[in-house]
């Protein structure tokens, strides 16, 4: 087995608050891995750091052996310079707009006579020249630098965004369910499948045959995902009209629809009765049987101990233990974290 996800020395700081401190863990391909710990231990923060919602203050997160990051490629470079040049052109033309228009258009055009385009272009150039070296080149340079740096700044801020992580193959659910309430079940799942759609804006607008073919396949597959979580019967109803337990399952279906290699479940059993959590455990096993690695945060010990292959325990942002359910159950440090230490008088 190889490590599909490796968290190395991750520290998350929010100002003075340290949510995770030097957390390291390694999730093997194909296992069910649980992260547990008392409330406020930094479990969800860790998930957010993994999925790119937060940028880890220190440390690195490797998925399949490498960090998920946008690289500064040749294409990015070309785009950055193109944006710079475009800004420069807009700036130069905007600052000289009136003079250029006056010289090239208004003075050249005689009513109802063919317009001398060539002459107008020549005037355009001479007017630009005449407007002074610095007004043209200076403004152009400022425009170029602004455009180029602006593009760079945006790129830098978006090196590791949640959508990039999702596209790389990590899906997640949320602790407080975040479905698209006004969309129905199929549409919720279809949003998850979006990255696998090939039709672009114009195809969606003009609808060539390949659009219809793709739509048919996508709908069939969306139904398969809904059947997988046993929600196909309610496919047409709005997500917000579902009962709580079903909403959790729909969130899982939506995450599965992104066809991830790794799925992060944030408290999937929260608010479920014993029968429902037993169903959930079966569902999680079936997810794993599809070849998807599962990492879950859970407070329900029955669920955690029942399905996990390995468990990590966090407290106050630090990892205090790691091991199989059996090891964790008997680990005095974990018992202390959950129940407190015995005071002997």
């Amino acid at each position, binding site marked *: 087995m190889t490590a599909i996800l490796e968290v190395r020395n991750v520290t998350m700081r929010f100002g003075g608050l340290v949510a995770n401190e030097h957390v390291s863990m390694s999730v093997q391909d194909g296992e069910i891995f649980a992260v547990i710990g008392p409330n406020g231990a930094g479990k969800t923060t860790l998930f957010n750091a993994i*999925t790119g919602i937060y940028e880890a203050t220190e440390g690195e997160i490797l998925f399949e052996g490498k960090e998920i990051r946008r690289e500064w490629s040749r294409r990015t470079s070309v785009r950055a310079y193109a944006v710079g040049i475009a800004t420069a052109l807009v700036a130069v033309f905007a600052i000289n*707009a009136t003079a250029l*228009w006056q010289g090239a258009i208004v003075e050249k055009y005689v009513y109802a006579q063919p317009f001398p385009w060539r002459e107008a272009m020549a005037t355009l150039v001479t007017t630009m020249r005449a407007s002074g070296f610095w007004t043209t080149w200076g403004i152009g340079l400022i425009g170029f630098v602004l455009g180029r740096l602006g593009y760079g700044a945006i790129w830098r801020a978006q090196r590791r965004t949640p959508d990039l992580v*999702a596209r790389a193959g990590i899906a997640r659910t949320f602790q407080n369910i975040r479905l698209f309430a006004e969309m129905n079940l199929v549409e919720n799942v*279809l949003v998850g499948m979006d990255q696998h759609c090939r039709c672009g804006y114009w195809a969606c607008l003009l609808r060539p045959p390949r659009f219809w073919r793709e739509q048919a396949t996508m709908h069939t597959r969306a139904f398969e995902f809904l059947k997988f979580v046993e929600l196909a019967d309610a496919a047409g109803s709005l997500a917000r*009209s579902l009962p709580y337990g079903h909403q959790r399952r729909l969130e899982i279906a939506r995450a599965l629809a992104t066809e991830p290699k790794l799925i992060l479940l944030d408290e999937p059993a929260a608010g479920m009765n014993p029968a429902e959590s037993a169903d959930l455990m079966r569902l999680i096993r079936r997810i794993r049987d599809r070849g998807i690695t599962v990492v879950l945060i859970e407070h329900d010990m029955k669920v955690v101990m029942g399905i996990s292959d390995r468990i990590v325990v966090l407290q106050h942002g630090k990892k205090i233990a790691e091991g199989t359910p059996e090891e964790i159950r008997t680990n005095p440090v974990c018992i202390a974290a959950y129940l407190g230490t015995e005071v002997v008088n």
Partner: protein
Amino acid sequence: MAISSKRITINLMLIAVVAIIPVVEKYVPLGWHISDPMTDVFVYAILGLGLNILTGFTGLLNLGVAAFAAIGAYVFAISTCEIYPFQLGFWSALGLTMAAGALAGFALGAPTLRVRGDYLAIVTLGFGEIVKDVLVNMDSITKGTQGINPLPPPTLFGTELSGNGQYWLFMGIVLVVVAGARRLERSRIGRGWISIREDELASRAMGIRPDHAKMLAFATCASLAALAGALTASRLSSSGEPGNYDFQISILALCIVIVGGLGSVRGVLLGALVMVGMNSIVLVKLTELIGGSDAAPASALADAHGVQWALLFIKTWAQNVLMSPTNWKFLVFGLALVLMMIFRPEGMLPARGTKEDAPDGDDGASGATAVANKELRP
């Protein structure tokens, strides 16, 4: 595919009713003259449909949609007017206008992607004012407050259209825009937009690229608003003065979308009919009915003295200002909005069912719903 035959019949009947209005008007002399204001309704419907894509689907509040209409009107005017050498035909100018609108949308969208909610509203509001001021001050190009005129009327296959021809052309364009908006809504593009409105973080975590989606929404909105501006300019044969494209227009467009139902294409059409119809049909007719022009003649005022004069003055003033319902429009709009927010905040024709239930079988609110229902039927 998704629409039941019943729905198709109803839609076709509605289209037919709207289409024969000018004919009825010609042969049945009721003296209504509503085909002219109806053309306004069409233009506002296009503006509303554009705004609906940005504000209704994607959930980005835009208070400067009039600026895009202004850009559309001026690009159309500059590219067709005989005082400039370009003199494109109606349709190529329309295409250029929509492209320019989309470009303007990109230009505003790109730097403001990170700005959300109220802050984006302020940015768009500022953009609206800037565009207006630029148009006034670049007077060597835009002719300042005179506006650019004359502009050629709309043409179809080389024939110049006027009156009823324009009515039907504009109606046709509205239908095309409606079809486009619905197609986008029921595809992955629309689902991406709506998912961003519903929960941006969740949609990012599902692999939707919000920047991409928002830029498309901005460009589509701006391009439709520009189309609306260009159509108005062509109809009035003038770009109008920049002051025509002020905040009021943006707010009217927003009211159309909100009253009709945010995110609902049918709602926007009804909203345009109600809001603009109220403004340019109902209130105007009411004014004529009440006879707002029958104010006391100025001569009577000149002859009167003292208390008599004061009474007469008040009466005249009241007749002029209050008895003319066209002056009530902001009162009516305001009241309508307040009542809507209290009793039906989701709009007259909301995008989805208002009750806690599944959409009914023939609703066809989305392709997926219909497929779902079809699949479920034994």
